[in-house]
């Protein structure tokens, strides 16, 4: 599985989530959000370290309002973890790597 974070959009979201072999963590972010920028390197690290356990994708809420609205995202960063196409965990706000991994661990 390739390490790194792919970008998804309103039009590619469903296919990307549906076709993934691992749980998928979606990072709802935007350019103007300071805390989103702070977690970007944390997510890069997790994507690299945990490539066999989780796929991380990012969705720019500014450019893709439909998916953000569908999942009722009203605050960023919001991270949604999908397993078999369903949301199994939601986390709002920036967090450090250890805290984030501890939260996600139960679902991976």
């Amino acid at each position, binding site marked *: 599985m390739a390490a790194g974070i792919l970008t998804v959009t309103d039009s590619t979201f469903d296919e990307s989530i549906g076709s993934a072999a691992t749980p998928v963590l979606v990072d709802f972010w*935007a350019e*103007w*959000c*300071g*805390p*989103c*920028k*702070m*977690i970007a390197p*944390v997510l890069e690290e997790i994507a690299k370290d945990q490539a066999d356990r989780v796929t991380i994708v990012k969705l720019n*809420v*500014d450019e893709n309002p439909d998916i*953000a609205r569908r999942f*009722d*995202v*009203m*605050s*960023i*960063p*919001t991270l949604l973890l999908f397993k078999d196409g369903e949301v199994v965990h939601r986390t*709002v*706000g*920036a*967090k*450090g790597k250890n*805290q984030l991994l501890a939260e996600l661990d139960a679902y991976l």
Partner: protein
Amino acid sequence: MTPHDVLIIGSGPAGLTAAIYAARANLNPLVIEGEISSTSDQPGGQLMLTTEVENFPGFEHGVQGPELMTTMRAQAARFGAEFVTAKATRVDLSDRPFGVWIENDEYRAKGLIVSTGARSLMLGLEEERRLIGHGVSTCATCDGFFFRGQEIAVVGGGDSALEEATFLTKFASKVTLVHRRDQLRASKIMQDRARANPKIEFAWNKRVVNLNGTDNLQGAVLEDTITGEQSDLDVTGLFVAIGHVPNTDLFKGQLALDDQGYIVTGPGTRTDVDGVFACGDVQDHTYRQAITAAGSGCMAAIDVERWLEAHH
């Protein structure tokens, strides 16, 4: 374990300015910069959640808060300051060199600079925590976008509240500023700007006593601070800017604090423990500006340098 000459806890304008000065004095400062979060209590401090900073000297046309802090951090790093992205969990100021822990990781330092700043107060309502991310926000710059065309409220009466209210009118159709008194403590320029903004309304002498909504915020219950009368405010977003508390839990019982919990300093940035210096909002409830924090950070670095020369 070789002790650091200088360890700095906190990385807002005070901590980073101290780091720049200490690094340039070849004191190899280590900065424990805090843990990533979406609150004002994070690396870079309160400015990480602001937009335009118009009053920091040297920026004729203003500068974005996060950009200012990112640049300050890079400037400190250029002179050799090192950073640990985590929160200090314990200190021992009775021992020499001083002990600082991040969970089980131990750090030792001859001189210590405390610049842990202050964090935003929340309302303390039961519903508030549950509705964070569902209408209640700790970050106007992050979340204003989601309230396009909606009616929202900002709670507070200081500069931060008015800045947020003014910023949020870019998105919201109406912003109600809820304030527990009938006058604002914000600066004149911020007041004039808010009062001139047709999208901002003021709810005077009101405090928020409850929040409605199960999945998402659907309104706030206000109580008149004079008559005690309650009223509903139909809003889908609520931003809280009611003031700050100093981040001094770590130092309780070890450093002298005033009755509001701020570290007592003087002369200069000295605390009551020889070799420990404090700067920025953690010891200042009067000025609380980026520039005064930076200025006191510079003072702390000079104070610690002279103290090290005299004692080591």
